[in-house]
């Protein structure tokens, strides 16, 4: 099926429509105000229409990111509630003294609450860095959305190096963790920040190598191309989703991306039981809110990355592409939640050992498999 939503085309049409309205206004009032017609004409030039089209597309993507954040957050709360034999988040009835409903609005209530929270900057903190760190995390996780395509048409930026871009944006957050940990001037945050840096050493290489494995198979680092390659190289009419030929890579990637997200088996920098709240200990008000938001934004982006790389992106029968993509990402995200709430946290030296002695060799194996498959394909064998 084709895409439902043509982001670039529609936003350009909206932009052109606005400029048409401006032109109509110029015709109407041009007689009285001489320069108005010039302005309107300038607005009707192709470059300006294109530019405003981009701005509208960016806004649409941001709105999507925020709405999706609410859905994902609500989903996680509901899911782990059920895992723990509870009902999860619910909303109190307006006048009866009962709790019912799905509690979807609870996330918005939390957001409003965090905006209204008192702001505390510790006396010993390095002020500018302390305030910069949450913003860095938020910006980097939002930026990852720029390169994520939801379908062949719902795509903001069709980047040649899209996968690298997404991972690069992910890789910025350990830096901010380190900054926040040091700048807070607190011992828990110091240890948490150092742990964040150490954890990054463990998972970053396997993550990149798994992407390299997929890129070798697909011959491109563009997420659109990777999905197209999975659709193209079908065996017996079944699409060649890369989690079958790259199964080892898929497992390694899942572990590494969980560590990237700081989700529970690997939420070592946060480690709420030993370090109170880890590197977040001193962070209050909307700064905490931004970090909280970016955590789930990154969560969905990571699920999207998994789907793009290993589950054939938006390919699927009957439904439009966006629907398939969202279904797949939510399933992957649900898997993240399931793992996170049923496994205990492991130790920092253990994740380094796992990373270097298990994940890195395995990810080398995925590269070798990818190379072998690629090589075989030149002789008419293999999956290409």
């Amino acid at each position, binding site marked *: 099926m084709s895409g439902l939503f043509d982001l670039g085309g529609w936003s350009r049409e909206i932009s052109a429509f606005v400029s048409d309205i401006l032109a109509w206004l110029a015709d109407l009032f041009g007689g009285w105000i001489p320069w108005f017609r010039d302005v309107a004409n300038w607005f009707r030039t192709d470059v300006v229409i294109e530019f405003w089209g981009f701005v509208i597309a960016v806004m649409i993507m941001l709105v999507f990111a925020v709405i999706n954040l609410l859905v994902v957050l609500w989903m996680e709360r509901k899911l782990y509630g059920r895992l723990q034999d509870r009902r999860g988040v619910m909303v109190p009835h307006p006048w009866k003294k009962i709790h019912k409903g799905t509690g979807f609005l609870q996330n918005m209530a939390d957001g409003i609450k965090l905006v209204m929270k008192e702001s505390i900057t510790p006396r010993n903190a390095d002020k500018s860095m302390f305030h910069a760190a949450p913003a860095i995390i938020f910006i980097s996780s939002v930026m990852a959305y720029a390169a994520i395509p939801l379908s062949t048409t719902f795509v903001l930026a069709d980047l040649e190096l899209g996968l690298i871009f997404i991972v690069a944006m992910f890789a910025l957050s350990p830096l901010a963790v380190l900054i926040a940990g040091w700048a807070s001037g607190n011992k828990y945050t110091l240890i948490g920040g150092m742990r964040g840096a150490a954890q990054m050493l463990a998972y970053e290489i396997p993550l990149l190598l798994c992407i390299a494995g997929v890129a070798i198979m697909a011959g491109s680092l563009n997420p659109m191309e990777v999905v197209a390659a999975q659709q193209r190289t079908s065996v017996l009419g079944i699409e060649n989703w890369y989690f079958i030929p790259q199964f080892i890579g898929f497992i390694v990637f899942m572990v590494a991306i969980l560590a990237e997200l700081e989700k529970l088996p690997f939420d070592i920098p946060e480690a709420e*039981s030993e370090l109170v709240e880890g590197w977040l200990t001193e962070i209050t008000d909307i700064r905490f809110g931004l970090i909280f938001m970016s955590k789930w934004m990154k969560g969905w982006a990571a699920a999207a990355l998994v789907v793009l790389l290993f589950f054939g992106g938006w390919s699927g029968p009957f439904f439009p592409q966006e629907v398939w993509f969202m279904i797949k990402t939510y399933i992957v995200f649900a898997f993240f939640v399931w793992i996170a709430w*049923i496994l205990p946290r492991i130790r*920092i*030296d253990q994740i380094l050992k796992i990373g270097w002695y298990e994940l890195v060799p395995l990810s080398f194996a995925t590269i070798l498999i990818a190379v072998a498959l690629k090589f075989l394909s030149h002789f008419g064998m293999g999956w290409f």
Partner: protein
Amino acid sequence: MTKLWINMGPQHPMTHGLWNLRILVDGETIVDAEPVLGYLHRGVEKLCERRTYNQIIPLADRLCYVSSLCFAHAYCLTVEEMMDLEIPERAKYLRVIALELQRVTSHMTWLMAIGPDVGLITLLLYCLREREYFLDLLQLQTGARMNQNYPRIGGVSQDIPSNFEHKAIKIIDKFKVRVKDYHKVTNESSAFLKRMQGVGTLSVEDAIAYGVTGPNIRGSGAKLDMREHDPYEVYDELDWEIQVRDEGDSLARFHVRMGEMQESCKIILQALKKMPDGPINVKAPLRPEGQTFRRTEDSRGEVSYYVVGNGGESPYRLKVRSPIFCTMNVLPKLLTGVNVADVLAIMGSIDVCIGETDK
């Protein structure tokens, strides 16, 4: 490199109570540790000198908020021994049932606390769910879920209702099924084993030297249980086994407690079957004289009371030996050289209760 003194407590997720573990870290390795106690000191021993013997029972209840019945019972047992008072057989059985119910709830509290300690919050909610059943049973027997005030000098306060046995069997059957779930998320999960195995190893010699008792020493390989070695009530008439593990690490202590919960269920069912009819109380003298020392097995270790009566309405002197207060001494030894994250696995497996530690 600079070493850092870090306060873990009094307001810290690790503490399970109000105390402070001060650790000296070099990077992430602990170089020195120092437990700081006294945030919850209430002077119970001194308070007891101003109260009559019966008024002390509620105070003893409040020594440990997790296994309050054990402390109240130990006190009553000590005073009865001082008075040379033989209590009715049925009261003995009732006490054993209540004690074992309390032991299960206490171990459930420990299990639910160890989950969040190693980052497994789901376990907390599972255990809270099943702990509720045993608290219901306890409520049925004693009338309260916490601070029951159940044992009396010369017996117990009330008999069990007629539907108690039926309910107990049903709940224990359910519990035995649910325990499998706990094993699935704990010692059948390699991530949990990674955190617990080989962490905080305590040798038998050290355990004896530092006065560690209860499940903690049984995890180190010592077959030491006051219910067996200094039998009280009717424990010697019942068929049960001491849970011992030789490894001495956090996982061994975990297994000992998991096993003890099963054994407690066994004891409850047996006691319910064997329990004779009869009175549940005898009248006790008001102004005893003499001195006694008596030890019992709490869910955390060996509780002993030393009571001196001089013929007055209240004891002349009362001394409580609480298990975790003695176990705290071994912390510097256990924690030196481990990772900061291991503090949780070790403290969780020791099962700290600050109520009894600070007294």
